[in-house]
């Protein structure tokens, strides 16, 4: 294994985050068992105090995971010189079978954690802690997810052997190669872009409908769940090509580099936050019937929807801009 400080840091953070969530889960279980808001007993007071600890631990854990996700990608990028054939982070993630799953799990943890945090924020605005059981139940789902993510990441790092020849993005993402990564770029640019704009229209429309009518929040969340993977596929099979001005460079990470004006950040940050907020709206909206939460749901859901719509709109705008300003013209071939 490579013993670099960045890898040690990532493994350490995963372990610590799992431990923090475990601690939070222990308190959560106690709360779930003995919670009785009407009682003024000392036990109830202790439980109420422990809700602050749980909130703090989980917020902290999720924040650490988000930063660790970035660190993971940057680290993969910086290690590419140590693997033959790896031109960038993509090649590094491909060294063994654990690389991409590790990344995907981290992204899943990000979304699940964000939804939890948004639910927590909502619940804190209700004077009778209405969602407490749901919240802490969800925490008991988040914990194993984080643990598995940490384990897969550990496996990935343990099996990183610098001598192994890996395929760089060129051969990896070429349609002839096997595996998910190859299939994603085998999607033709035309199909990818149609799907992108289609899902974009769907998500923007359903968001607008929610703003107007306060209904169909689940539709909005569901359309975001579709829009996100479609967007990733579109980036890999189409937008990236225009950014690099190369019909075969499909790597989703190189767009984060300075040489491409850091356009990757303009694409990923709005996309990730908008998706997380849209999922949050879907999680919040069903509770508008609870008396103590009515105003809070209305206000929060509205705010999140607006920010999410702005994020999505920004994403689609930047993606379009990247294509439009590119010097690559495939007018005859692809369109």
């Amino acid at each position, binding site marked *: 294994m490579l013993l670099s400080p960045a890898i040690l840091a990532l493994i350490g953070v995963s372990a610590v985050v799992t431990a923090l969530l475990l601690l939070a889960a222990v308190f959560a279980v106690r709360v779930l068992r003995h919670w009785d*808001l*009407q009682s*003024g*007993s*000392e036990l109830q*007071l202790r439980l*109420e*105090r422990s809700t602050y600890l749980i909130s703090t631990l989980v917020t902290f854990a999720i924040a650490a995971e988000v930063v660790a996700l970035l660190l993971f990608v940057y680290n993969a990028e910086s290690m590419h010189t140590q693997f033959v054939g790896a031109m960038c982070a993509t090649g590094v993630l491909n060294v063994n079978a654990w690389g991409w799953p590790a990344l995907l799990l981290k992204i899943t943890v990000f979304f699940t954690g964000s939804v939890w945090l948004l639910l927590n924020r909502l619940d*804190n605005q209700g*004077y*009778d*802690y209405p969602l407490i059981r749901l919240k802490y139940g969800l925490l008991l789902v988040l914990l194993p997810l984080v643990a598995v993510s940490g384990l897969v990441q550990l496996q990935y790092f343990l099996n990183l052997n610098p001598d192994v020849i890996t395929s760089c993005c060129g051969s990896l993402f070429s349609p002839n190669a096997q595996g998910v990564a190859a299939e994603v770029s085998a999607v033709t640019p035309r199909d990818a872009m149609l799907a992108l704009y289609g899902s974009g229209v769907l998500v923007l429309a359903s968001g607008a409908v929610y703003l107007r009518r306060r209904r169909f929040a689940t539709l909005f969340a569901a359309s975001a769940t579709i829009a996100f993977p479609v967007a990733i596929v579109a980036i890999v099979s189409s937008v990236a090509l225009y950014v690099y001005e190369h019909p075969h460079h499909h790597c989703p990470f190189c767009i984060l580099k300075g040489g491409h004006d850091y356009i990757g950040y303009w694409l990923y940050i709005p996309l990730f936050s908008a998706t997380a907020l849209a999922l949050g709206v879907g999680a919040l909206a069903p509770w508008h019937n609870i008396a103590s939460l009515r105003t809070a749901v209305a206000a929060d859901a509205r705010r999140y929807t607006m920010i999410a719509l702005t994020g999505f709109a920004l994403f689609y705008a930047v993606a379009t801009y990247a294509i439009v300003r590119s010097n690559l013209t495939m007018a005859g071939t692809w369109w």
Partner: protein
Amino acid sequence: MIKIHDISKVFNQGQPNEFWAVRGITLDIDVKRVTVLRGPSGSGKTTLLSMIGCLSRPTSGRIFLGERNLSGLPERFLTQIRRETFGFIFQRFNLIQGLTVLDNVMLPAYPLAPDHGALVQQAHALLEQFGMAAKRESKVEWLSGGEAQRTAICRALLNDPQVLIADEPTANLDTRLSQEFMHIIDELKAAGRTIILTSHDPVVSDAACVDRVITLRDGQVQDS
């Protein structure tokens, strides 16, 4: 109107040193009046006061502030109500050492994050009202008893509370300052605030502005 219905408070429940500070007290506190809770130490008056002022929760029973039931509220909301409705003056003034008079007075408003300029103005106005304007930049360690008392009063009044609660306010004051204090209480009552005090100082319970004196013993109200 503050209605207290059969509240009790126990400490260390289930353990050998279990102690019932308040047992089954039912009372009504009138608004815009001065009420004094009197009794020896250990009678539960401080515990009762802290429950009325939303500083702690009763083990059983209900407290109503107007129409609102306070007993089942979690701390976050209790604090909100406490901030808006109650102002506290403590026996030992409890000012934060190392900060100036002005900082101490503004402190209760920090979590609300109001506009800074407006807050400073408000604090200045209060300090003027109580004659502390000249000392606003002094550190609180250098204040005399009476000045600290007045700073504590300003702090308690910063969020414009309806009810003022004071626990043994004259315990560390001489007779002259105690009488001055009761004079301030009278003015506040005239301004429409509800005042609840605990004391075993006759200067307080015998003062003219006091409307009602409740005697407590062993956690229960004595009929008087």
